């Protein structure tokens, strides 16, 4: 087990290096950079000091060849934990990201719990009662959930909440609570707003997990060992819980690997619509404004998180099912 984890960790290193190269390439792709925009603003008579321009050019080696720029960026991250400066916000990228990553993570985690809490029992139900009314009902809901783009669902829910419940929609907080320090009232207020993003983000995942659970369980339910256990007079519930569900859970766990990155990346679109103070909209804005260090750090961070998420689910899986380690 330990060697397995170690081997996977070593394999991770080149992947992360390549990802950092790709992130850098992506932020270099658009012609020009933020300084060009800044210089244009300077010519148009905006208040940007020549010294500031000079300082920024100097610090990031923006007039130097690409590999020098890449090296400065990477060495800053590795050696000093410095992700660079956001040009647009005029603040360190690290602070900007830290501000939002907590809420992003909280949202992802609660969505994951929501998805599991719903998908798990329903998946079992529809597999055991195959071709029943419930099965058809959830299959139908599942397909709709898969076919509806997240932002569509967000818009519809917002419209419904706005029109019929008169709730202030969008964001994670009511206007009174946006800039106040954490308190119980603020947490409660957040919980009141949390349900829309959770439903929006969770629906398609729930739908696909129900499908997976159903398919896996159906494979197991017709195996001889189930018949044997039943013939021995085991009660249906404990039979289910003890054998087929446990086996069917196996691929279920492996989906954590893709649930996590999907939660991170899928939330971008939804967060823009719902105006959530999480990392997605900030990243979109950074990409559009060519705020290169902010955008690049985001891509780098999200990709690394994805890799870690995959690794975690693989380890979990290997721990649950020893066969996997040796293939």
């Amino acid at each position, binding site marked *: 087990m330990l060697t397995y984890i170690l081997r996977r960790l070593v394999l991770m290193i080149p*992947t992360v290096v*390549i*990802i950092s190269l*790709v*992130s850098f390439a*992506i*932020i270099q*792709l*658009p*012609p020009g950079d933020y300084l060009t925009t800044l210089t244009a603003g300077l010519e148009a008579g905006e208040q940007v000091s020549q010294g500031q321009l000079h300082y920024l050019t100097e610090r990031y080696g923006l007039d130097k060849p690409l590999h020098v720029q890449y090296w400065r960026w990477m060495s800053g991250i590795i050696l000093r934990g410095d992700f660079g400066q956001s040009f647009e916000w005029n603040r360190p990228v690290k602070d900007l990201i830290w501000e939002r990553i907590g809420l992003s993570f909280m949202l992802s985690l609660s969505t994951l719990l929501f998805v599991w809490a719903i998908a798990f029992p329903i998946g079992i139900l529809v597999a055991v009662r195959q071709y029943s009314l419930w099965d058809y009902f959830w299959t139908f809901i599942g*397909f*709709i959930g*898969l*076919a*509806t*783009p*997240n*932002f*569509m669902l967000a*818009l*519809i829910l*917002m*419209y419904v909440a*706005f*029109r019929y419940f008169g709730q202030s*929609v*969008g964001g994670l907080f009511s206007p009174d609570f946006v800039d106040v320090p954490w308190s119980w009232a603020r947490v409660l207020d957040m919980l009141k707003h949390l349900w829309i993003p959770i439903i929006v983000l969770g629906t398609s995942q729930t739908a696909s997990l129900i499908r997976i659970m159903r398919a896996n369980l159906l494979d197991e339910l017709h195996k001889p060992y189930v018949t044997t256990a039943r013939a021995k007079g085991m009660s249906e519930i404990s039979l289910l819980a003890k054998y087929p569900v446990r086996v069917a859970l196996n691929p279920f766990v492996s989906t954590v690997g893709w649930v996590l*990155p*999907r939660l*991170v*990346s*899928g939330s*971008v*679109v939804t967060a*823009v*619509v719902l105006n959530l103070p999480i990392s997605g909209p900030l*990243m*979109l804005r950074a*990409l*559009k404004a060519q705020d290169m260090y902010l*955008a690049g750090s*985001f*891509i780098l961070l*999200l*990709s690394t998180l*994805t*890799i870690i998420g*995959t690794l975690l689910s693989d380890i979990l899986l290997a721990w649950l099912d020893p066969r996997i380690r040796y293939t």
Partner: protein
Amino acid sequence: MRTPLNHLVNQKTRVSKTADLTPPKPGTPGAPVSEQRVEMAGQWQLMWWKFRKHKLAMIGSAVTLLIYLVALFVEFLAPFPRGVYEARYTYAPPQALHLFERTEQGVRFRPFVYGYKVTIDEVAIRRVFEIDTSQKHYVGLLVRGAPYKLIGLFPSDRHLFGPLEQEAPMYLLGADRLGRDMLSRIIYGTRISMSIGLVGVVLSLFLGILLGGLSGYYGGAVDLLIQRVIEFLRGIPTIPLWMGLAAAIPLDWPPLRVYFGITLILSLIGWTGLAREVRSRFLSMRTEDFVIAARLDGSSEVRTIMRYMVPSFLSHIIAAITLAIPQMILSETSLSFLGIGLRPPVVSWGVLLNEAQNIRSVATAPWLLLPGVPIIAAVLSLNFLGDGLRDAADPYGR
């Protein structure tokens, strides 16, 4: 040499296999006649029979076909050209289409819509529309309207339906921010949105078959390298990657180039799934008896692949493609919705939904959400179609 080796075929297994496949002819299932039909039927025939039994897939393929027909004939089907705007009717609500007119002579078939009475709300500074039952605008079939070239080739000015007087307001699905007809724009969006899925899939199919085939056929170092690349591409969260690449498309590119740029970006990820599918097929088939036999018979590599291997997994590939198209459509929609995909004046469903991005516009004009309906319909029906194809792809299995 060509006589079938009857003694090798176990009659029992043969019967039990045919019993699962009920030929859909009136003859009772299992009767000798139909059994013979099953035995005579070719692979594609068996697939078709199996596919026909999948009700949802049949519905899905009908709807898909319909949507692609709409995409083909947009200029004819849309009552108005996509760019026509009318400042008087910004955010006009949808009108109901009345099919029958009640007159002194009785009820008769004559479709019409009522006009609008427009007042300006001084406080909210916006137009308030009321249906004005005193004005009637008649609607006709095959009316003359704005001239167009069908698929850019055949000039005409007939539209499937439209107002009889060209100036009359007809907004069956409401109007948008600039007073453009939503119905026409949704119909125009069909072409872009549906074709982007097709073009993207063709691109990723090319990459997927080439690289997946290489990987599966040769194995070894090639396989290892290609598999690592695929794993890497799949490891990157897609939306940030797409966003990064899409944001890199210069703003001054002409619409057509943006279109291909976006398709290219989408298929950059899309090919990995197809490549995996192709590879696993190649791997499992490389050691099949008939492939080895072909090789021992001295057929060249290309012939072995094209003549023997490809036909046997073609159906799986087709199913995989069908399931990849809706993914592309959804991705394009998301990107355009965020404003980093296709951009106006190009009209796609995502571009249309971009107008409905904030709750304020949705609250004033909920019909701006309507482009979501064809998206859901298209994605659903393509998914059903793909599911049916996937099940039918292996007609010998259960």
